[in-house]
Every structure is written in C-alpha cells, then in structure tokens.
C-alpha cells in the first residue's frame, strides 16, 4: 500500500474541516440530515485527496456539488416553483433513462441471431459487467475500457482508506461516549 496512511490522514483532516463547516451552518439536524452531511463531506474530502485529475474525482465533485445545492434548496422554506423545476432537472433523469432503455429494446429486437459460441458468450458477459462497473463508478459512463481499469484502481484505494478512517472514528467516538 503505497502511502495509504498519508492518504488517510489527508482525508481525515479535510473531512473534519468540512464537517465543522456544515455544523456551523445548521444546528439541530436530525439523524438523516446528519448522515447526509457526513456522507457529503466525506465524498468531498475523498475527491480532493491526492492528485485531483482523475476522472472519477471530477465527477464526484460535480455530483456532490449538485447534491449540496439541492440540500440548500430544500432547507430554504420557501421553495418557489422555479426552484422546484431546477431541482427536478438536476436529479438524475427518470425520463432520460426510459428513453435509453427504449432504444436498447429496439436494438435487441433487430439483433435476431444470437450466437452461442463460447467466445461470444464470454464477450457478452464481459460487456455486461463493464457496464455494471461503469454504473458503479462516479463518472464511469464517460470512460473507455483502459481508462476504466485505471480509475477503478484509484477508486478502490481511496474507498478503502475512507472506510478505514470512518471505522476508526466510529470506534473511537464510541469509546469516548463510554468513558467520558
């Protein structure tokens, strides 16, 4: 693990900073809001560690910024119809997804001859799985195959670091509660 601990330290620092900022903004958040705040600041912190040039980090930045905007919109009590419209457009589009699946169905109907040889089956499996992996990774739909593998490497590493840091924080804060 090439400098995992430094990654963790950086992540922790940025995360705590983000959380403090959040805390200063809103008081008395309920559980779900707190969870969302934690998750968002963790995402932001993860996205800003190491070199910020990888594709998934940029996509993560974009996603979290839209989510934060959404949350700020929702927190303001007076949500004008304009804001509602904006919120609808920003959420990842249900009608768009329908259009895409419709196109896929049409394609499949024309695809009459289904080859049964092993190589074709393997190819189909691999394609299906790369599609799934692309959906998992932030910003994955814009990557080609070789890029995808690189990005998943980086992403897995950062996710591991994030999980370890969070787990450590949880246990230590539990202890803190136990023995104040």
């Amino acid at each position, binding site marked *: 693990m090439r400098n995992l601990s430094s990654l963790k330290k950086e992540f922790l620092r940025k995360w705590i900073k983000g959380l403090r900022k959040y805390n200063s903004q809103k008081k008395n958040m309920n559980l779900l809001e707190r*969870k969302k705040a934690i998750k968002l600041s963790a995402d932001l912190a993860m996205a800003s560690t190491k070199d910020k040039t990888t594709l998934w980090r940029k996509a993560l930045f974009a996603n979290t910024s839209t989510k934060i905007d959404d949350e700020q919109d929702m927190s303001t009590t007076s949500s004008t119809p304009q804001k509602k419209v904006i919120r609808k457009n920003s959420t990842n589009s249900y009608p768009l997804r329908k259009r895409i699946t419709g196109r896929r169905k049409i394609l499949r109907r024309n695809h009459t001859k289904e080859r049964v040889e092993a190589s074709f089956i393997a190819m189909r499996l*691999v394609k299906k799985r790369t599609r799934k992996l692309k959906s998992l990774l932030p910003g994955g739909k814009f990557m080609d195959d070789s890029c995808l*593998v690189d990005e998943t490497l980086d992403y*897995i590493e950062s996710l591991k670091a994030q999980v*370890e840091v969070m787990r450590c924080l949880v246990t230590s*804060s539990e202890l803190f509660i136990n023995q104040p």
Partner: protein
Amino acid sequence: MLHCLNTSSNLVGGGNISDMTVLERQRARIKFQNEHQQFSGNGFSSSHQQQFMMLGCDSALGEIVTNSMKPDPDYENGFDEETVKKRKTDNKVDLNSKDKRIKVCVEEGESKIVEQRKGQKNTKFNNGNKNKRENCEDSNSKENSKGSEIQNQKPDYIHVRARRGQATDSHSLAERVRREKISERMKYLQDLVPGCNKIAGKAGMLDEIINYVQSLQRQVEFLSMKLAAVNPRLDFNIDELFAKEVFTQNFPTTGIPSEMTNPAYLQFNSAQQLVSCCGGLINNMGIIPPEIGLCRNINAPTSASLPEIFLDSSIFTHILPSSTWEGMVEASNMKMEM
C-alpha cells in the same frame, strides 16, 4: 559451402517463380553471408551439421525438421504475403542455427523491411510499450537487446511483433496493444482486490471487482449512518479523540497503520463466536495488545462485510440500549441485507 550455396539458391530460385523481389534477393544474400560465416566459425554444433545435411536433402524433409523445431515467428510475419512453404523452411532452418550476432543482422535486415512496409501506416508511439514488446518477443525469440535498439533509432512508432498465425494489419495490432494494456492493469487489480488470485479471465475478475466496490460503498453508507447516530451534534473533537490511544494506533507517525477492529475480525472465523465475543471485546477495547495489529487484509470482504455489520450492530445494542436507536439499527440491517 558451395554445395550449400547451390541448394539454397535452388530452393529459393527453383521454389519461386520469375519475380525475385528485392526482399528475396536480400534474404538470399544474407543467408549466403550467414552460411559463409558459419563455416568459417569454430564452434560447429551437431545441429548445424544436421541442418546443412537437411539442406542437401529434400525440401520436404527439411520441412519436417523445421516444423519439429521451435518456430520463429518473427521471420514469418515479415513475409506474410509470400506463403510459399519452401521459403519458410529455408528461413527457419537458417535462423535456428545462428549465433546471436548473425541473428541480429538478419533480424535487422528483416525488421527494416517490415518498417518500410509499415512506415506509411502511422501507429502512435508509446515509450512505455517497450517492455511489452520485449515481453512479446521474449516468448518467441531472444532479441531483447535488438528490440530496444530499433526503438532507440526510431522513437515515433510502436513496434509490435505480430506473432505466428496472427494478422498483421495496423488495426489488429493496435487492438492487440490495447488488449495487452488492459490485461496488465487487471493484474494490478488482482493484487488490490483480495481473493482474486485464483480467478483467471476477465469476466470473473470483473465480477469480483464489482462485488468489492459495492461492498465498500455499502460500508461507507453504513458507517456514515453510524457516525451520525453516535454523534448527536456532529462535533468531532479531534484533540480529545487523539488522546485516546486507540486513535493514535490507527494514524501512527511511523506510517504503519494497524487495524483498530482487528480483534473483532480475528474472532470472525466462526459465526457462533460473534455474539459471545463482542461483549468481552468492548470491555477490552481500550487495552489493545500491539501484536494484534498484524493481520492486515480481510480475506473475503464480500462475505465479511455482512457479518461485520451484524457485529457492529450488536455492539451498539450492547452500549446504548435505547428504543429508537434499536429501530435505526434494525432499519440499517435490513438495508444491508438487501
């Protein structure tokens, strides 16, 4: 020597028809040089003698000999257009019996021809591909030094040797380079994702990778939920936290992180021990023997994530037996189980 010359010229000239292209003439010239040099050399192995005998015999017999020997694909693909068998056997026989210096000359001559042919098709060059190309060649011939030489001369192209029996147009070559890049990266992923060492093949490995990423993401969700529950006010006082020995163990200055919850993991092997152990573990959490921070990797994260979640939730019910909290825990458990 004259005998050999005659046979070689017969094979080349007789085998082929009127067109002696520049290629063939060059090859014949080189062959002649090689044979000449071999005769003048001292170390005649028995194999050399054998092959010269073969040259004297039928070309068919020579074919049999060369087919049983290791095929040299580099030669093959330089001349893929001419598929006359006799010429092939000739080249194979000659190549396999050379010492390195001579082989280098032949290869150079041939590869220069190859470069001329492929000169028009501009493939992009990547310096990092040098190793790959050498690996390609390694399996077939032993010309690593030669490969790097060529690359130093012409740094603008990717040099890829097409192996025996494979197409040589630029599209398939470029595709092969791309495929090799991807498989190399997958090897790195194999090291990163635990449990991938036994799986060969892209589909299975991709499956494992997907499972691992999903489990990691779910863990993050769950942990953030837990954190939100533990801290009613979202104030993480780092100084006080660092005062706890537990925290500093995870972020040591030496740079060797030790897993905090390793004692929990160590007890994981049998599910029955879970509930009984967690009680004792929590009491001992503050006093963690340093040797435990050893076992680094979780062997099966996909299967371990679910039992870990159960363990964590059971710890929580032990600490904070409040009704609302238990409701939360149940809800998150249900979510994870999905």
